[in-house]
């Protein structure tokens, strides 16, 4: 009360000489993406300001956050994904081989969010995790953010966990997934060459196709990267050996299979991968060769005597690749990480392909 009266006195009464108050600049509110490599990883996803607006779960991208999607995508227990890339102002990536990740500048951040739609009981969206991969002084680093139940924030957690997701799938059936959120070492198992951490998706071969952006516009992704300043040179699109969407029957069956194998298997099954001591090479650039695909290549592990070859032409049930993609138990299944349920559509693709391969193994 007292202070109010005092305020009144100050505001009214005799007019004192007008003194221009000093101009106090309101603190400039930082609005751009907050990438401070020395302070990262942040404890909370919101600290990065990747997304704007009051509702983090809307994932409305901040300035210069560029959405992208690989042409052929990894199966992750039927989770949906949203992907963004961000690079510091004035920096850009350069393009190397079609099947190699772009040469990214320091400070690049790749943000990938995994969510399910039609999650029971309310048939709502549930965002599970956001994986942040950033390049710090030449080293890619992992940060894993786990979303809270209220879907208002995601918190740094690199220790690994599982969460049960019950949802209505695209066939309208209820499905349950015991979804695995990776520990840091699990990130590295797939995301590496030798023992050096790397991203997997952003390669020219995976980006050279049209994409519909959140703002409704559409265009070739590599061109968009160039126009956004994220590619240093205009890409020669026609010169890029490009994968096809594995789920689009318009394309050649073997190309679809090779595209599927590339994104789902080749992070381990290529030179420098976690399992390059196995005989197959499934990167798109290598899988044109039947032996690299595993056709008539002997298995190195006894399964049950029925699968002596990785692929036995015309005989899916005689093929270890089919057996492992069909398996659920982790000591048998492939891919080992990122999948706990069968990928019915992927299995169908491989099965169809094997069944139409001709020849007989010695």
């Amino acid at each position: 009360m007292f202070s109010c009266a005092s305020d009144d006195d100050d505001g009214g009464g005799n007019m004192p000489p007008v003194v221009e108050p000093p101009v106090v600049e309101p603190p400039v509110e930082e609005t751009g993406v907050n990438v401070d490599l020395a302070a990262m990883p942040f404890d909370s996803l919101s600290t990065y300001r990747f997304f704007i607006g009051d509702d983090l779960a809307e994932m409305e991208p901040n300035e210069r956050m560029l959405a992208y999607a690989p042409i052929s995508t990894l199966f992750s227990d039927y989770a949906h994904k949203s992907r963004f890339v961000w690079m510091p102002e004035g920096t850009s990536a350069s393009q190397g081989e079609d099947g190699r990740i772009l040469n990214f500048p320091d400070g690049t951040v790749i943000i990938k969010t995994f969510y399910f739609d039609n999650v029971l009981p309310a048939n709502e969206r549930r965002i599970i995790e956001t994986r942040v991969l950033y390049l710090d002084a030449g080293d890619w680093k992992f940060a894993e953010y786990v979303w809270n139940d209220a879907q208002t924030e995601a918190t740094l957690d690199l220790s690994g966990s599982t969460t049960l997701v019950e949802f209505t799938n695209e066939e309208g059936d209820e499905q349950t997934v015991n979804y695995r959120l990776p520990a840091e070492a699990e990130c590295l198992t797939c995301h590496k060459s030798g023992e050096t951490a790397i991203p997997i998706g952003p390669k020219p071969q995976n980006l050279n196709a049209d994409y519909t952006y959140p703002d409704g516009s559409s265009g070739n992704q590599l061109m968009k990267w160039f126009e956004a300043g994220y590619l240093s040179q205009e890409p020669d699109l026609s010169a890029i050996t490009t994968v096809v969407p594995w789920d689009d029957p318009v394309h050649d069956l073997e190309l679809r299979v090779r595209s599927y194998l590339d994104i789902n298997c080749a992070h381990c099954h290529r030179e420098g991968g976690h399992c390059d001591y196995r005989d197959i090479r499934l990167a798109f650039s290598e899988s044109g060769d039947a032996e690299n695909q595993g056709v008539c290549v002997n298995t190195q592990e006894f399964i049950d005597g029925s699968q002596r070859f990785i692929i036995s032409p015309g005989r899916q049930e005689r093929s270890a690749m089919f057996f492992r993609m069909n398996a659920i138990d982790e000591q048998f299944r492939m891919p080992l990480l990122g999948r706990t349920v069968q990928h019915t559509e992927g299995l169908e693709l491989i099965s169809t392909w094997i069944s139409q391969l001709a020849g007989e193994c010695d």
Partner: protein
Amino acid sequence: MKNTLLICLLLGLGSLSAQDDCASAVDVFTGLTYVDTLTGVQVTDIDCLGPFSGNESGWFTYLATADTTIRVATGGFPESTGSDTRFSVYTGNCDSLVCLGGDDDSGPVYTSIFDFEVSAGTVYYLVFNDRWENDPFVINIEEVFIPPSLVDFTTVQLNREGTFGGVVDMNGDFLDDIVSSTSDTIHVQYQQADATFTEAYLATPVADHTNFWSLTAGDLNGDGLNDLIYGGGSGTTFMITDGNEGFTEYSPDYYIFCQRGNTVDLNNDGVLDVFMCHDVEPNVYFINQNDGEFSLTQGGIGDTENGGNYGSIWLDYDNDGDQDMFIAKCRGGNSDARINQLHRNNGDGTFTEVGAELNLADTIQTWSAAVGDYDNDGDMDIFVGASSLGNDYHRLMRNDGDVFTDVSAGSGLEVNLETSRENKTHDFNNDGYLDILGGGSDIWINNGDMTFVRTLFAGPNGAVGDLNNDGFLDVVGTGGGDSRIYLNEGNDNNWIKINAIGTASNLNGIGARVELYTTSGQQIRDIRGGDGFEFMSSLNVHFGIGENTNIDKLVVKWPSGIVDEIFPANINTTITVIEGESPSSISGFAPLDVAVYPNPAANELFLPLELVVEKATVDVFDVNGRLLIRRALTSDRIDLNNFPAGSYQLIYRNGAEIRVGKFVKR
């Protein structure tokens, strides 16, 4: 030829009802038989090769006219169509068929070949099915001479619930049982004294992690029953017995990509600890606090940042009485994580990695190594089995004291181009030399001079134990689909088995060195809680002794430092060795007495009431050292109703407190 024509004629007339079931089975004879598509009834439980999803079958009978060996084949001869066949062979009659065997893929491509002994006058049923396809094929039957196999197995289908895990005693009777598990059930097939099995489905708490990658066993809480350690892809769960048929769960909230696990007393405090290989990080171990809790440590025994740890195996390579460890390692990408390691126990709870100085730091991509004294010279040699031949080949490394020498060249093992993740060693033919199960899915018989010869095992590698208590080691093999029991048919060689009971040391005697002396020389074993890659094999000690008919001496060097010398009177039997209890025990260890009463006793026996405390256990042995009961002591009374009259020994155990008593039942 006449017979062949007859079959062709029948088919030509469309008479497909013949061969459609057992009653209408068509006679076949030596020579060729042409078969059109299969149209017969299929009975799913009659495939001797395991479960399958076929629909049609074809039934044939072969009447043996002489005692000989015949080959039934659909491939490997000019008239073969090369079709993908599969067939079973039975004896008996249509009301009661008995599996003899069969084959799927032993012939060229996917054709079948099965050789078997026949007796004159016996009818053999050959039943083909369309497990893979239903195309015309040709059966060729001929008499063959098969050189005698070095070791033969009879195959029995195994019914199991969940993931097969091991062959290990689960009820304290020292007979190996068969263990499989799901997240909430342990399926045990308890071996009975008459070599049959009784089944139990033991409910457990819902395990955070299941034994997809490995199963390990050992008595962690000293209640006389083995506990189980599940190795899962993102962590481990311990299922600890409550002394009966119940379990409590211990699942640390800690990411471990488990591979091989081991039970081992790391700090030599008389209770078992747990070691777990981590695929992608430094290894993890759990020190048993002996109160239901375990303290977890990551690092110190295999610290490669990105792991590569697949097959840990504990051994006393330098014969200094403590347990060292070899790790079979694997990793793509030209990573150092694939370089094998040997961790020497410094005797003070620390370990030093000495793989390079011992010549063991090779780049073989391996998931397990088979460790044993292959040349019976008193130290542990190592067979490193390649899981892939991309970087290096299988290696046999001879222990020469301060270095291991690569003796692969000329051993017979170096020519093997097959690979496997399981490698373990046992004496399968009881000739007194350790053989190798691995390097593919075959058994490599040790010739006794560090050379080996392959003998076809024709089954998936698995867990090893004695499942009919006949002194010949059996295998339970499991692959991606079914599991089978492979019962060793045995031979004329002699054997002895030892059930070890630790008193000052851990109850299982894990870490003990067992030495056996016969006229042929010395053999040694280390009692191990977990070998190979995935499965848990028997904790009982087995020695083949060839043609020896007596054993000069048996020495057990326990982890406690106690040494027992035993002079077994008999062979081809199992003896129980209790730590510190042999008359010539070199120990300085004198267990206290326990005054049991009344003595002699009638139908019940009592212990002093003050000994009845939580965690106390009691074992009762007969005069032959056979363990009769082992149980948690929940009251001061022991029921003797089922005991025959005679003398007995009793061991009371409460942590490090060991008491021994004797009584007579009238």
